[in-house]
């Protein structure tokens, strides 16, 4: 068995004070000057180490408070209050919620899995991935000695077409070409987010992280040629124009991405004929008719497809459909046609949590791309100011590459641990076996239908509350 894949993480401080959910409001007026002030009794010493960050005007008492409410409850004049922070609610959007963003910040800073304390107080079910529950019935096993204990759980996956069988010559040698497959240690690839106040230094940091993690980072071809050559082995050049000569400037990248379409056929053929040609990943936008496109691509000899959803985790043209449904229906269709194993299915679009990686794989993806998550790891607030030409509040483009790399390694290290937890709890020891393993999940819509459809249709206007 190969050595265990372990991602070593270490805490990496933030460069800016994070925006926290709540803040302290402490009045000074009316203070009784008690001999022992409740502020002195804070076990975390929050008031003693108080300072004000002048760049952001963020007071450290807001960020360091652990919400024990001791000072709030014991001030005899009730001069201390805890209030919700309006700036917190304002970050992100409906998909990249403040809670998701702050949990990503936490993971990038600590490299640890965020825990919510005893019990689960989230919603029972929700839209998108939240309407999918994974089967944790084997949860007793990995906890026996932890996810890094005796049990061997492999998160590695293969990219590229795996042959159905091998042919050997009489002499026992392999006949024909050795199949071109690429192994990555976990079902996570990285790609450039759609916006962000980034610089070459940031991309360099992401490349460093990809190299350290042993995974790949998708970047536009132009970027590889401008000084990132040493990382080409960990890069997926993304080609968007016919202009470039096929195969030129790839610098030994193991895989390239091109859009799928008739007009790319010649380019594609030329690319496959160059020596040591890279794996080709065809990008298909997740929209109406994507299913048929995928089937045609498989017919046309594609070995890898990248299904690109919207940054909000949905179909690009239909806000009411989620990528999980897109992946699932395409996967099932490929199974039906008997060609599922001839193709590697990669998915992207709004992947924001480790559980969504596992759920995407259960729905039928071989691996996923993460994009905005690796930007949020760098403290991005998803404010989109950069798209309006305004300054970035956290000055991401000035961050050093080494800091960028460490934050991303921490984030994906925490995600990898969560994958191990989930897989262990599901009794799955190999990520390749998790693909399409929908027996390990329950889908709310289906359960709802199975259980209640015999009771008749719900009439409009009399839904159960």
């Amino acid at each position, binding site marked *: 068995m190969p050595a265990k894949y372990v991602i070593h993480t270490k805490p*990496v*401080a933030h460069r800016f004070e994070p925006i926290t959910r709540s*803040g302290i*409001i402490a009045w000074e007026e009316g203070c009784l000057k008690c001999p022992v002030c409740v502020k002195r009794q804070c076990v975390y010493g929050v008031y003693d180490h108080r300072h004000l960050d002048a*760049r952001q005007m963020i007071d450290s008492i807001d960020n360091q408070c652990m919400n024990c409410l001791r000072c709030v409850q014991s001030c005899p004049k009730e001069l201390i209050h805890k*209030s919700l922070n309006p*700036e917190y609610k304002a970050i992100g959007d409906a998909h990249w919620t403040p809670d998701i963003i702050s949990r990503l910040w936490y993971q990038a800073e600590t490299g640890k899995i965020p825990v919510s304390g005893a019990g689960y107080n989230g919603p029972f079910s929700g839209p998108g991935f939240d309407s999918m529950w994974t089967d944790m019935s084997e949860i007793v096993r990995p906890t026996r000695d932890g996810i890094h204990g005796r049990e061997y759980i492999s998160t590695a996956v293969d990219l590229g077409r795996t042959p159905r069988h091998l042919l050997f010559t009489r002499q026992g040698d392999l006949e024909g070409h050795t199949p071109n497959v690429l192994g990555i240690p976990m079902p996570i690839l990285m790609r450039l987010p759609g916006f962000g106040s980034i610089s070459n230094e940031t991309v360099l940091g992401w490349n460093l992280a990809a190299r350290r993690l042993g995974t790949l980072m998708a970047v536009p071809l132009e970027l590889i040629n401008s000084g990132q050559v040493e990382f080409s082995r960990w890069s997926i050049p993304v080609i968007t124009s016919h202009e470039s000569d096929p195969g030129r400037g790839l610098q030994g990248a193991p895989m390239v991405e091109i859009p799928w379409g008739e007009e790319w056929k010649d380019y594609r053929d030329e690319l496959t004929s160059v020596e040591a040609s890279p794996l080709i990943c065809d990008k298909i936008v997740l929209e109406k008719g994507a299913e048929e496109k995928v089937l045609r691509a498989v017919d046309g000899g594609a070995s890898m497809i990248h299904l690109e959803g919207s940054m909000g985790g949905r179909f690009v043209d239909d806000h009411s459909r989620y990528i999980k449904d897109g992946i699932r229906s395409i996967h099932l269709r490929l199974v039906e046609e008997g060609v599922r194993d001839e193709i590697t299915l990669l998915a992207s679009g709004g992947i924001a949590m480790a559980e969504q990686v596992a759920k995407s794989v259960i729905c039928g993806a071989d691996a996923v791309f993460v994009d905005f998550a690796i930007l949020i790891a760098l403290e991005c607030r998803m404010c989109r100011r950069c798209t309006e030409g305004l300054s970035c509040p956290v000055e991401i483009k000035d961050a050093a590459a080494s*800091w960028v790399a460490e934050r991303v390694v921490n984030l994906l290290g925490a995600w990898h641990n969560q994958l191990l937890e989930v897989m262990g709890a599901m009794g799955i020891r190999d990520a390749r076996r998790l693909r399409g393993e929908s027996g390990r999940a329950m889908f709310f819509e289906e359960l709802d239908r199975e259980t209640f459809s015999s009771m008749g249709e719900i009439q409009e206007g009399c839904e159960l509350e």
Partner: protein
Amino acid sequence: MTGEYRPTVALFYCQNIPQSSEDHRRVLEKKYGQSMRLFPIPCSGRLEPIHLLRALEEFAEAAYVVTCPEGACRYLEGNRRAMKRVQRTQDIISSIGLEKERVGIIIESSEAPEPLGQLAERLLERALKLAPSPVLKGAMTTKEHPSP
């Protein structure tokens, strides 16, 4: 210094004043760039003298606070406290020889509250009357952040 003199104003404002949403703030930022630094605060009572002082110390020629109308504070007496704190800050800065006018408070009227944009315009003009701040002369305008 000639006509090019562009003072930087730090503007702290209560989020209950008209046209003070994030979108409005961005419009103003685009219009004024670095010369108008806008800090929304949940309640003007949240502001302490230290906020104003740090702003004067680090980057601003003048620092102003805008509060909601008297009697309209969501936290009951936040704006009254803010008034006292601004006074205290004025005392502090005049004791070290700075003009009191570098710090100010604007209390919105309940009948005709002024939108944030108008206020910003008016306060920038007010700041123009001040001489360049002696505090900022030698100060670094962009502080290095602690490297990770």
